[in-house]
């Protein structure tokens, strides 16, 4: 029990917008929204110092439901937008969010490069192993034998991505897996991710009760990793491979130089670029 006497001034609710989420009742994404607002309140970050960038999908609607700066972007391009924003406004706390389809199908290339680029931002993939918004097609994290979509009768037959393993091999410096059934644990994980200097990635197991109703049983399968966070990529890789994809915790964290255009030789004075494009 960690009890500090410093009063928390800002309430999680202060980070919610007046727009009511249109997510289906019971959707895991509600818990992600709650965890983000709890983390921001804990860190007492002024709203105007935070931006939440998202792509397209049910999960990507999240940007509209917070009161921080938001950009509901283009499908699969949330990380590209976020990189541009961070390059221009290093002072902002940049959060990026979306689904497994948005981040690992159409946005897969941006994902691996964001991992290795290591700009200081936090990326949340709400993984429900389905395309929710387009009515239930298989995504890159769907099991090969899931055959509930007419588009893939009998299943895709294709091995799914392991988002944590992918992030590790692409060079991410902070990798965690959370679960919406534990919104408070997820909030704590988000605090650690936001505080991490560099690219922090959280895969959140976020059930879609509408197209994957069986995921409502995840609460009986999810458990915390027994091991501590590792800074050794080999150990982290072993943990990821040995796991069934349902263990939660911060898997890997390492201090790596943070990339910021203008620092360390990379070109990129945003103000200069802006003046070049002035009409």
């Amino acid at each position, binding site marked *: *029990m*960690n*009890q*500090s*006497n*410093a*009063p*928390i001034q800002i309430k999680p*609710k202060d980070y919610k917008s007046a727009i*009511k*989420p*249109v*997510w*289906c*009742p*019971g959707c895991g994404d*509600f*818990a992600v929204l*709650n965890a983000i607002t*709890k983390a921001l309140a*804990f860190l007492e970050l002024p709203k105007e110092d935070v931006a939440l960038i998202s792509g397209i999908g049910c999960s990507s609607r999240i940007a509209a439901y917070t009161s921080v700066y938001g950009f509901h972007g283009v499908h699969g391009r949330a990380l590209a937008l976020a990189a541009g924003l961070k390059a221009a406004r290093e002072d902002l706390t940049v959060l990026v969010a979306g689904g497994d389809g948005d981040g690992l199908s159409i946005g897969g290339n941006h994902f691996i490069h964001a991992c290795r680029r290591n700009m200081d931002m936090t990326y949340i993939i709400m993984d429900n192993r389905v395309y929710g918004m*387009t*009515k*239930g*097609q298989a995504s890159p994290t769907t099991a090969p034998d899931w055959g*509930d*979509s*007419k*588009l893939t009768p009998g299943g895709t037959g294709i091995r799914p991505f392991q988002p944590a393993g992918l992030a590790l091999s692409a060079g991410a410096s902070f990798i965690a897996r959370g679960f919406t*059934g*534990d*919104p*408070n*644990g997820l*909030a*704590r994980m988000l605090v650690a991710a936001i505080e991490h200097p560099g690219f922090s990635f959280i895969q959140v197991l976020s*059930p879609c*009760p*509408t*197209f994957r109703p069986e995921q*409502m049983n995840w*609460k009986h399968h999810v458990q915390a990793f027994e091991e501590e966070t590792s800074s050794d990529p080999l150990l982290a890789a072993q943990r990821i491979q040995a796991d069934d994809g349902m263990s939660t915790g911060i898997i890997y964290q390492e201090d790596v130089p943070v990339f910021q255009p203008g620092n360390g030789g990379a070109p990129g004075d945003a103000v200069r670029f802006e003046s070049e494009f002035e009409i």
Partner: protein
Amino acid sequence: MNLTQKITSLDTFLAYSIALEEEAADRHDELADMLDVHNNPGVAATFRKLAHYSRLHAQEIRDHSKGRSLPVIAPWDFDWENMEGPETADIGAVNYLMNTAQALQIAMGNEQRAHDFYYQFSQQSQDPEIRAMAGEFAEEEKEHLDLLKMWMDSTDESVDEQVYDPDPAHMPE
């Protein structure tokens, strides 16, 4: 060690009690919003009312705490038996077709768990002040439960009702 042994000061017990009620109120509001958006105003109003009651109870506990300096505890540092407070409704328990009786059934489960939480402290805490306060709160939760039972008896809906939607909003493709 169970929670009744871990919480040894009245201030911490009160901080837990306020968090329990506030988290429940926020969840009830959240469920009300979900049902509002999905055009189920009757059930939305029920959850809204339940949020109001949890908030009243939180305020009452805050009044009891006047002049005391309660610890500030981060949401994840509460040592709840489950992942959320005992009165917090399961976010996955709702659906857009549910009726008021089904909403009340969820609420009764929440109140029962809150009652059991306080009752346990009233029986097992080592601190006589905590025992007395917890006994009072347990009694109030019992009253809420009785009110919910009366409310349930007055509805002509059934918890077993399965509403069929011939044109559901979400059909897998």
